[in-house]
């Protein structure tokens, strides 16, 4: 694996956040926006041990090579589970976006083929693709803003239903699977100022707040009508009077889901490689496991619960903290 820059790290994590914004039904309105801000504040605190750990010269690859298997296996299982949930989210939201191929199997196979090719090119190429897609996402956001501007009504914000700031914060933390990814990707990021590496948090917060504000100001009470407020927002935020700009959202959605699953495939395959160096076709194995997990989650209708926060806190906060304490003890002993 090659090294990536802090900017590329930010783009990869932002795209993952953007996909979650598009796919999941989140609350809108001022309390929910406050909850999102609290959620991001907690995320920042959760990132601190990982930042300190990497500052002290930690490397996940070296750790895996020291024949520590448990932690890498947990990370692989987590990424496969999240990849599986991503497939379920795509299948669920495909009908909303009228994807040309909405059959679950054909969608999974097509995405799988693209992900397999993208992951075979390595992390560096993937991160370049992420930068390009982030630019495209920016353009899409501008188009969304232009379309929504004509429909914005600040007084509608008070009509947006919201279950409160606490619920907003919990919901936001549930979707924070980019934090364990951040911990793993830090191993491949060039050394830089901590603020640069954490840029995905303020930009992600801005992205969330913009979408939530637009949903509340444009849709008002209508936001609770649709299952996916973002797609409802795009339906009504058309920059041209008698022409729809759905194609651009469709392209972004497909790009984001492909990159997100590729991200989980690349990381799973890489960690698998460090645990089992002789294992071949790691990307294919990771993808097949993800599709299998997706089928299972789809069968039981699971896309997330507040318990999702536990593995995020464990992998992003508890594990780095434990490794940090362990390292300090080793330093003192030596």
């Amino acid at each position, binding site marked *: 694996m090659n090294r990536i820059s802090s900017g590329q790290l930010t783009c990869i994590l932002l795209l993952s956040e953007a996909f979650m914004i598009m796919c999941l039904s989140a609350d809108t309105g001022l309390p929910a926006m406050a909850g999102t801000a609290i959620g991001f504040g907690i995320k920042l605190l959760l990132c601190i041990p990982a930042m300190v750990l990497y500052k002290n010269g930690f490397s996940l690859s070296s750790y895996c090579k020291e024949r520590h298997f448990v932690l890498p296996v947990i990370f692989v299982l987590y990424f496969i589970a999240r990849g599986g949930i991503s497939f379920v989210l795509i299948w669920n939201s495909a009908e909303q976006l009228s994807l040309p191929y909405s059959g679950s199997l054909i969608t999974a196979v097509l995405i799988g083929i693209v992900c397999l090719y993208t992951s075979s090119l390595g992390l560096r190429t993937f991160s370049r693709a992420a930068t390009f897609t982030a630019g495209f996402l920016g353009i899409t956001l501008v188009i969304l803003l232009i379309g929504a501007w004509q429909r914005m009504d600040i*007084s509608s914000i008070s*009509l947006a239903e919201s279950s409160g700031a606490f619920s907003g914060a919990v919901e936001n933390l549930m979707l924070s699977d980019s934090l364990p990814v951040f911990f793993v990707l830090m191993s491949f990021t060039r050394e830089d100022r901590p603020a640069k590496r954490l840029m995905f948090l303020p930009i992600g917060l801005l992205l969330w707040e913009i979408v939530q504000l637009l949903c509340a100001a444009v849709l008002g009470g209508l936001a609770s009508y649709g299952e996916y407020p973002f797609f409802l927002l795009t339906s009504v935020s058309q920059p041209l009077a008698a022409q729809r700009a759905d194609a651009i959202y469709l392209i972004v959605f497909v790009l984001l889901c492909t990159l997100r699953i590729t991200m989980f495939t690349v990381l799973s395959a890489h960690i698998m490689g460090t645990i089992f160096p002789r294992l071949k076709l790691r990307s294919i194995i990771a993808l097949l496991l993800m599709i299998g997990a997706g089928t299972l989650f789809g069968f039981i209708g699971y896309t997330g619960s507040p318990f999702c926060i536990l593995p995020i806190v464990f992998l992003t906060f508890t594990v780095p903290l434990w490794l940090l304490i362990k390292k300090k003890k080793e330093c003192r002993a030596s």
Partner: protein
Amino acid sequence: MIKRIFCLCAALIFATGCTGGTAEVRERIYVQSAVLDAGEYTSLELFLFEGTGELVEGVGKDIFSATENAAVRTGREIFLGHTELLCLKSPMDSSGLMNCLDEYRLSPGCRLLLLQGEDISEDTDTTKLTDSLKLGTEKGNIPQTDLFTILKELQSADGKALAPLLTEDGISMCITDGQNILGILSQRATIGLVWLRGDNHPERITVTGENGTESFQVYSACTDVSAQIIKGIPHIKAEVKIKGKGNTNAACNMIKAYCQSAIDETAESMRADVFGIEAAIARDCSEYYAQHDFDTVMRTAVFEIDVREK
């Protein structure tokens, strides 16, 4: 290198949707306006964009099957995404309008026109009808409405919306609850709603002052609807500020009279919120809003209008 070129070619063929499920422009019908009659059976009359001179009809159990039926008759796919005007023979509820927006991909800016009793024949120029709706809105003769604003109003607490209605005399405005037309508004109330909603004020109005009839040029105008609870009763205040050239006092008095007519005919007589009453109460008196149902609010509310120079 060969592998990359192969993958690029494969992506161009498979990923761009050029292989199947696509339609050429000539294989599609682009609908300019549609007349929908959603009775026991749904009938759909589709007027195409200028130049084609064709009327396509379809009947089915719902809009989807009616559209399919029309497509089979003509042998071409029907594209509703550019539809500028949707005429409804009877009012449609919010779920029906949501389907139009979400499932049939109608533009949120598509104009809606109710046709209670009036009919649109094959000879009707629906483009002219669309243009007169647009022009009426631009000139500030009728309030700005479209598919999305009507849907949003129908989804609000009172479930009533302001919509254009085709009458013998032309285009009027009416209040609908998605099932029936509750009442047709007078010309004065319609103009009053233009000012109360504050989306599209006219550029010039004719006022009667001490020197007789004269013209008042409106440079800018803004409307603010606010709410206040006084002795347990909601007081709704509509504040219109105008800036322009001419007899400002006469203009203010005239606008106030129009606004009063609008309030009398909508909020007072039909309990219809068509100028942001609910939003104002939810924003300014959130506790009161949470404790009372909106019907009670509308029954007890006291309205006040203030029109003045900016």
